[in-house]
């Protein structure tokens, strides 16, 4: 009987305990991306909305406060809640400067409700833009670069 109530108590608490966000210190290398275009597919497939092809659009989205993400080498996307010394990641100067860059970041990682998050304490290394997607996709969206005036 005692075991039964113990089991029941565990079951009752389970939904609440899985939502507790417990952090883990990680160092991760990946590209700073625009989460909306990546997740929504509004501009095309995920391979086309990263790197140099999508750099200008990434600037637009970052400047407007759309959350940036860190796309790790294993494909995991971390939504960035803080980016180094910059307290916020909503259109801040650091986020703009690092748009489309591949960086190594040190920080605390969390998971909640199917979304991964990272609070970056320090950008350990900035490799710049190394994902040269314009070679395959030109620019995404196609109007990102205005036609030069003659």
């Amino acid at each position: 009987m005692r075991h039964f109530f113990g089991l029941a108590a565990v079951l009752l608490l389970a939904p609440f305990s899985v939502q507790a966000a417990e952090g883990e210190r990680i160092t991760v290398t990946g590209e700073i991306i625009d989460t909306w275009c990546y997740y929504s597919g509004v501009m095309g497939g995920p391979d086309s909305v990263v790197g140099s092809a999508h750099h200008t659009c990434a600037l637009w989205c970052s400047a407007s406060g759309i959350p940036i993400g860190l796309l790790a080498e294993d494909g995991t996307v971390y939504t960035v809640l803080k980016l180094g010394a910059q307290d916020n990641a909503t259109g801040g100067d650091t986020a703009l400067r690092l748009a489309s860059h591949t960086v190594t970041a040190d920080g605390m990682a969390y998971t909640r409700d199917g979304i991964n998050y990272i609070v970056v304490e320090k950008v350990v290394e900035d490799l710049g833009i190394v994902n040269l997607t314009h070679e395959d996709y030109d620019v995404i969206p196609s109007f990102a670069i205005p036609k030069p005036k003659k």
Partner: protein
Amino acid sequence: MMRAFLIAALALVAAPLAAQDFSENSKAKSWNLYAEVPALFDAKVVDAMCEITGDCPANCGDGDRQLALLRGADNVMVMALKNNQPAFTGAVVDLLPFCGQDVTVDGLMIEDADFPVRNVYLVQRIKSGDADWAKASKFTRDWAAKNPEAKGKGPWFRRDPRIKERIEAEGYLGLGLEVDAEFIEYLFE
């Protein structure tokens, strides 16, 4: 009695875990996104970092923090990535006035178990208490008020001083002006 208790316990456990349908009564307009699902729900507007880490500045960070929607039905934290404007615009400006408040939101959830992605959201309209629905379309007006020197023709993202500064320094591809010049010549040849 034991069986009844167990059934009740399992029902309580299963309820929040079961996939819920929030599309009923939604009037969200399609953006023709491959994984969009209309979703209308009650939620509390929260500072995402505060919810996760316990670091909670006043007024959800006054616009410096990403905002999320803590859904009343199941306590799921939905990230508000996008507002209703087709102009590369986030949702913080629209949600910040409701920091800490209970609201009803209508919009598009992006759900794809295979990608995988879930619980990210495009907010189309917001309703607080007895007030009328408000369109989540404030970003550009707010931007114009904050950037009077950038007044002119064309969309905000062509005129934004910080974006222009980055492009003037590193080009549209971000690879430097020399690479940019060669690429632009190829692109428009």
